[in-house]
C-alpha cells in the first residue's frame, strides 16, 4: 500500500518550505503545505480505507532494519490495523481542515512559511507515531511531535511568555518521555523485542509485576503527552501558540497520542490490573480537576484548554475501565468538536483583532453568525446533548465506568455537568448579551468558515460513525449494558449544566459575581488553578534552579572543574618560574649542568654495576 508515502509527503512539504520557504511566493508555500496534507489524506482515503472492511488483523510493511545490535532488532516498519486507520483519518482529515483554516488565520502573520513548515513537520511525525510498527519507531514520532509542539507554542518567539510556555511544554514532556523510555527498556528486557506483534504475543505469559511496571511507566509517558495529572500543567500554557496549533496539536491529535499508545498497548494492560486502575483514577481525577478550573477561566482559549485536559481524562477513564474502543471513540468525537471549538475561538479572536478575554466580548452572534452557529454545534456536542457526537462517546465511557466502579461514574457525571456549564458559560459570555469590547468585529473569510462548517457537521453527526463496532476485531470484547436510566442521568447532567450557565450568565448576569463573593476562598483557590503552578514552582523549579546555580554552577563548574583546570595551569606556571632560573643564558653554567649530569649518569652506572 506504500504506507511510507503518507508521512513522506508532508515531510517533503516541510523540507521545501523549511529550506526555500522564505524565497517562495506565499501562494506556493500555501499550495505545498496544504497540498501535501491533502495528498496524504487522499492516499489514506484511496489506499487504506477501501481495505479496511477486510482488515481484521494488522498489515505490516517492512522497509529496512534500522538498528541491529546483539539481540536488538529494530526495523522501520509501518503497520496498519483498524485502530491505526481511525487515527490516520483523524490526523490527516482534521489536519487538512486546520491547514486550510490556517491559510486565513495566518494570512497577516509574519513567518507564514515557517508556520506551515512546522505544521507539515508535525504531520510527518504524528503519522510516523501512528503508523509505527514497534515502540522505538513510535518513540521517534512521539519525540518528533513534542519538538513540533515546542516549536509551534513558541512560534511568536519574540514574546517572552510564548517561549516560556514552549520551554515548559518541552521540559514537562521530558518527564513523561523518561517514563516512556524506561518502559521501552523494560519491554526489551522482558520480551527481547520491541515489535508490537512480538511484545503483545508474549504479554500474557509475562509476570504480572513486569506488566504492571511497564504499564505504569507507559502511563507516565501518556501523562506527559496527554496532559494528565500531575503533568497537565503545560497544556493550558501551550495556548500561547497560534490558535490553529492549539486546535491541531493541543486538542485534536498530539495530545491524544497518549490515548493511542495506551490503547495500542491493550494486551499489556489487560494483564496489568493495577496499571489499569491507576489509569482510570488518574483519568477521572484529571477530568474532574480540570473541569473545575475550566469553570472560572476568563481567557476563551484557556477555557477550552482545561476542557481538553478534562476530556482527555475521560478518554483515560475509558481505557482504564477496559472500554478501549469507547476511549478511542471519544478521541474521535473530541477531535471534531474540540478542534471546532478552538478554530471557532480562533475565528472570534481573529474577528476581534487578538482579543481573548471573555469579559471583553459579548453579543457577537449578530456580528459573526457563522462562527457562532458552528461553535454552538460543537458546544452541544461536548455538552453531551443527544443525538450529537459527544453524547455517544461520553456515554460509552460513563457506562463502562459504571460497570467497573460506580464512584467513577458519578464523578464523571458531575464532570459532565461542569463541562456543559463551562462551555456554555464561554458561549454565553462571548456571543450573548451586549458587546463589551472596543474593536469592530468582522466575520472571518470563507477559507476559515468552510472548515468550521465541515467540522460542525462532523461534531453533530460524528456519533453515528460506528467506531466501537469497527474496532471490535482490535480490542477484547467489552460487553456494555445499555442502561436507559444511566443515560438519562448523564443527559440530565448536561442539561442542568447548560441551564445553570443560562441562569447565571443570561437570565441573571449578576448572580455569578454574587456567588463568587459568597465562596471567596474556594473561588480564589479555583480561579488560581489550585496554585498548582506555584506549588510546582516552589517544590520543583526553584530547588532545581537554585541547586543548579549553587551546586552545579558555583560548586561543580566554577569550583571543581574551573578550579582544577586553572589550578593545574597555575602550578605549571609556578614550577616554571623556578625552572626558568636554570636557563641563565650563560654557556658555562650550561656546561656545568652537562658535566653534572654526565657525572650523575656515570655514578648511576657504577652503582648499577657498570655498562655491561
Amino acid at each position, binding site marked *: 500500500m506504500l504506507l511510507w508515502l503518507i508521512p513522506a509527503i508532508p515531510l517533503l512539504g516541510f523540507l521545501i518550505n523549511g529550506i526555500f520557504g522564505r524565497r517562495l511566493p506565499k501562494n506556493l508555500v500555501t499550495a505545498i503545505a496544504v497540498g501535501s496534507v491533502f495528498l496524504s489524506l487522499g492516499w489514506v482515503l484511496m489506499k487504506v480505507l477501501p481495505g479496511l472492511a477486510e482488515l481484521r488483523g494488522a498489515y505490516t510493511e517492512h522497509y529496512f532494519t534500522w538498528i541491529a545490535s546483539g539481540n536488538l532488532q529494530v526495523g522501520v516498519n509501518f503497520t496498519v490495523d483498524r485502530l491505526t486507520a481511525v487515527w490516520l483519518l483523524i490526523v490527516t482529515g482534521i489536519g487538512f481542515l486546520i491547514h486550510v483554516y490556517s491559510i486565513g488565520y495566518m494570512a497577516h502573520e509574519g513567518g507564514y512559511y515557517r508556520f506551515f513548515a512546522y505544521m507539515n513537520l508535525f504531520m510527518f511525525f504524528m503519522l510516523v507515531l501512528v503508523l509505527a510498527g514497534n515502540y522505538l519507531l513510535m518513540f521517534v514520532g512521539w519525540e518528533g511531535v513534542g519538538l513540533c509542539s515546542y516549536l509551534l507554542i513558541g512560534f511568536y518567539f519574540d514574546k517572552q511568555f510564548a517561549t516560556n510556555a514552549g520551554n515548559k511544554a518541552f521540559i514537562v514532556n521530558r518527564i513523561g518521555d523518561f517514563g516512556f523510555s524506561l518502559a521501552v527498556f523494560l519491554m526489551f528486557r522482558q520480551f527481547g523485542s520491541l515489535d508490537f506483534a512480538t511484545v503483545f504475543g508474549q504479554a500474557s505469559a509475562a509476570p504480572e509485576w513486569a506488566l504492571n511496571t511497564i504499564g505504569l511507566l507507559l502511563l507516565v509517558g501518556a501523562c506527559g503527552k496527554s496532559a494528565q495529572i500531575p503533568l497537565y500543567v503545560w497544556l493550558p500554557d501551550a495556548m500561547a501558540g497560534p490558535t490553529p496549533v492549539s486546535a491541531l496539536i493541543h486538542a485534536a491529535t498530539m495530545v491524544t497520542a497518549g490515548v493511542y499508545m495506551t490503547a495500542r498497548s491493550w494486551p499489556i494492560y489487560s494483564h496489568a490490573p493495577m496499571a489499569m486502575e491507576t489509569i482510570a483514577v488518574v483519568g477521572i481525577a484529571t477530568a474532574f480537576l480540570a473541569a473545575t478550573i475550566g469553570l472560572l477561566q476568563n481567557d476563551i482559549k484557556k477555557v477550552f484548554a482545561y476542557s481538553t485536559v478534562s476530556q482527555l481524562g475521560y478518554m483515560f477513564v475509558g481505557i482504564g475501565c477496559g472500554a478501549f474502543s469507547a476511549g478511542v471513540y471519544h478521541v474521535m468525537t473530541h477531535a471534531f468538536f474540540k478542534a471546532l471549538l478552538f478554530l471557532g475561538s480562533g475565528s472570534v479572536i481573529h474577528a476581534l483583532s487578538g482579543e481573548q478575554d471573555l469579559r471583553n466580548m459579548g453579543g457577537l452572534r449578530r456580528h459573526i453568525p457563522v462562527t457562532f452557529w458552528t461553535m454552538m454545534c460543537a458546544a452541544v456536542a461536548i455538552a453531551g446533548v443527544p443525538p450529537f457526537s459527544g453524547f455517544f462517546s461520553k456515554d460509552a465511557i460513563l457506562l463502562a465506568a459504571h460497570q467497573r466502579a460506580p464512584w467513577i461514574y458519578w464523578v464523571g457525571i458531575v464532570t459532565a455537568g461542569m463541562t456543559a456549564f463551562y462551555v456554555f458559560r464561554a458561549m454565553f459570555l462571548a456571543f450573548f448579551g451586549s458587546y463589551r469590547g472596543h474593536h469592530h468585529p468582522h466575520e472571518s473569510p470563507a477559507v476559515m468558515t468552510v472548515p468550521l462548517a465541515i467540522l460542525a457537521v462532523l461534531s453533530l453527526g460524528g456519533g453515528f460513525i460506528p467506531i466501537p463496532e469497527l474496532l471490535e476485531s482490535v480490542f477484547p470484547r467489552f460487553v456494555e449494558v445499555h442502561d436507559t436510566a444511566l443515560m438519562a442521568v448523564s443527559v440530565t447532567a448536561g442539561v442542568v449544566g447548560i441551564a445553570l450557565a443560562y441562569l447565571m450568565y443570561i437570565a441573571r448576569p449578576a448572580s455569578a459575581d454574587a456567588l463568587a463573593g459568597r465562596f471567596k476562598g474556594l473561588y480564589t483557590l479555583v480561579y488560581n488553578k489550585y496554585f498548582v503552578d506555584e506549588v510546582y514552582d516552589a517544590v520543583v523549579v526553584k530547588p532545581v534552579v537554585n541547586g543548579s546555580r549553587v551546586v552545579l554552577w558555583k560548586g561543580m563548574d566554577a569550583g571543581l572543574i574551573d578550579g582544577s583546570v586553572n589550578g593545574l595551569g597555575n602550578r605549571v606556571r609556578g614550577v616554571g618560574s623556578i625552572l626558568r632560573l636554570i636557563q*641563565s*643564558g*650563560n*654557556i*658555562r653554567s650550561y*656546561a*656545568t649542568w652537562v*658535566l653534572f649530569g654526565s657525572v650523575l649518569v656515570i655514578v648511576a652506572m657504577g652503582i648499577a654495576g657498570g655498562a655491561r
Partner: protein
Amino acid sequence: MNAVPLSWYLTLSAVLFALGVAGFLFRRNIITVFMSIELMLNAVNLSFIAFSYQLKQVSGHILAFFVMVVAAAEAAVGLAIILTVFKNRATLNIDDINSMKN
C-alpha cells in the same frame, strides 16, 4: 707487544679530558674554550685508539677518523663565528656574548 698497559692510555685520556672540561668551564676567552673542546675530543680519540689496539678491532680507528672530521668541521665553523663575533663586538669574553638572553 705489551710495552704500555691499557690503563696508562686510559688514565692519560681521562686526565686530558678533565683538563679540557676544566678549561671549558673556567676560561673566559672564547679561543681557549674552543681549544678545550678540541682537547676533550682528542682525549676521547686517544681512548678509542687504545681500545681498538687492545681489542684488535678496526672500529675504534674508524670512529677516531669520524671524530677528527667532525672536529675539523667544527673548527672551521667555530673559528668563522669567533671571527665574526670579534669583528662586531671587539671582545672574546664569553660572558659578554649574551645578547640572545631575554
